[in-house]
């Protein structure tokens, strides 16, 4: 999402133009007050303590000691983190595996004149309310929902499948949110990949599969990495799908364990313990920053 650098400095009528400061000042001040300050506050409040349900300013490591000691004993937070890592990574991989062929079809299969419409149709769901889409998925995936009714009628299954309130349902919800974004990223990358290279590869005798595997796929690597980063950040930070479709403690291979984001939300809703909630959120920030840095390092092509 960064800007392509200007190719050359522009000759302005007035190099010392004050426009620069007039343009930047509002946004810098605004983000300073309403973005940077809250984030610093978040970190600071994580060190506060709570007495009689009131947050007391100060500096104590109690929240963190408590959270980390529970990582190894009662394990609620540890399992929630593990669950999040598991759900977020599998959902992201699934999203890319499902959307890549879709984007490929959009670029190379759909006729040029229909492409804009096809893309628009694919990102259309993104424009309707996420929480209502999740509600609709509830209707579909419920024990007596459309999906089970259909399968029972077709006699594919004898008993309704338990999908709702599992992390499988959570994944479906997140996937549905993620798919339009991933499709758009992959579509743009694939569409802008150098056609001359593809033609050259074909002309030099490569099969279609070789052209895809050795030329197109490497060309689209940045798009895959950006999609993966979006996928991880969105699914690790997502609250709604885990609650609405996962039922709070969605069953998964680890057992019925909530996602970390659900724990953070419930911690606040249940106890309004802002210091503890802040400490948990800070931990999530740090983990995501590490993942982001690793991802960006990966997407940086090695210099030759």
């Amino acid at each position, binding site marked *: 999402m960064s800007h392509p650098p200007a190719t050359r400095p522009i000759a302005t009528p007035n190099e010392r133009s004050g426009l620069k400061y007039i343009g930047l000042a509002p*946004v810098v001040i605004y983000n300073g007050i*309403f973005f940077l300050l809250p984030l610093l506050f978040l970190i600071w409040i994580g060190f506060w303590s709570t007495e009689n349900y009131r947050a007391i300013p100060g500096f104590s490591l109690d929240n963190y000691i408590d959270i980390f000691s529970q990582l190894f004993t009662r394990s609620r937070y540890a399992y929630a983190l593990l669950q999040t890592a598991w759900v977020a990574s599998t959902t992201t991989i699934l999203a890319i595996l499902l959307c890549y062929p879709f984007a490929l079809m959009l670029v190379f299969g759909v006729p040029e004149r229909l492409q804009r419409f096809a893309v628009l149709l694919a990102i259309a769901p993104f424009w309707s309310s996420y929480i209502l889409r999740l509600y609709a998925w509830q209707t579909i995936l419920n024990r007596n929902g459309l999906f089970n009714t259909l399968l029972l009628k077709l006699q594919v299954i004898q008993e309704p499948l338990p999908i709702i309130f599992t992390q499988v349902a959570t994944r479906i919800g997140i996937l*549905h949110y993620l798919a339009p974004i991933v499709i758009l990223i992959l579509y743009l990358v694939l569409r802008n990949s150098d056609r001359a290279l593809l033609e050259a590869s074909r002309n030099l005798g490569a099969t279609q599969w070789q052209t895809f595997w050795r030329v197109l796929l490497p060309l689209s690597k940045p798009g895959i990495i950006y999609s993966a980063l979006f996928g991880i950040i969105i699914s690790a930070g997502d609250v709604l799908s885990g609650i609405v479709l996962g039922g709070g403690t969605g069953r998964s291979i680890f057992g019925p364990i909530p996602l970390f984001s659900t724990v953070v939300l419930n911690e606040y809703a249940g106890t309004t313990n802002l210091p503890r909630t802040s400490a948990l959120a800070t931990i999530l920030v740090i983990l995501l920053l590490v993942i982001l840095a690793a991802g960006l390092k990966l997407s940086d092509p090695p210099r030759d």
Partner: protein
Amino acid sequence: MTAIKLSARPTRSINLLKLVGWLYLGGMYLFLMLPILTLVIFSFENSRFPTLPWTGWTLRWYGDLFRDGRLIQSLGYSLWISPAAAAAATVLGFCAAYVLNRFQFLGKKFLSIVLIIPIIIPPLILGVAFLGLLSRLQLQGKLISIFLTHVVILIPTAIALIGLRLSQMPKDLEEAAWNLGATEWQALWRVVLPWSIPGIAGSWLLAFTFSFDEFVIAWFVSGFKQTLPVAIYTFLGANLTPALNAIGTLIFLISICLLVGVELLLIPILLGQRRSS
């Protein structure tokens, strides 16, 4: 641009591949559209419970929606917060994008990264962070807080989109205006701004959508006056009603209008059609 097919030499197996591809495309579209179709169809279903078989048509859930009024009231709140937040973010975003696009200065790259960062911090974290600050400022639980915090998360999209549009502007355009005697402000007002209008309108649309749909931050900072997603969330927990399908259908109608705007404004910018106007 002409379409170049991966398949320069069509054979029977490629036709089969094509068929599989089209089936796949259809399947994915079904997956993408399924929840929305479900909402729309069941908003007219007579039975209280959205299950098959179909029991008949009704409009009573729409009646319920307006009689109860709570969701409609939240829709009202959302319908002033989101356009206002989108407008504020777009103005701030345009100013920043213009400076970043036109000027070279020390720390420019750093600044453009810093300004984009709010979009990669999960709303959950921002929600907790905003609550911490706002509760100190005695601002929590107010509608204005949702507006103030939403602007933060909308600025990055505005900067990115308007910046993209500006980067597609021929550099000589502004210089030509100066050479013809326009002042900086005149060139900005009469040349750069008109050029940016698709980007500005597109980013407003996108920002509006983000704000209109944002749940977690609004959940943390809102009090009794809830935006629509927060109100829907409370409904999901307490009293499930087919009125949710009805409001879903109404929102989908709004979003179709937005989509037309997206089709006209955003997609050309994203696809980089430089000579569109």
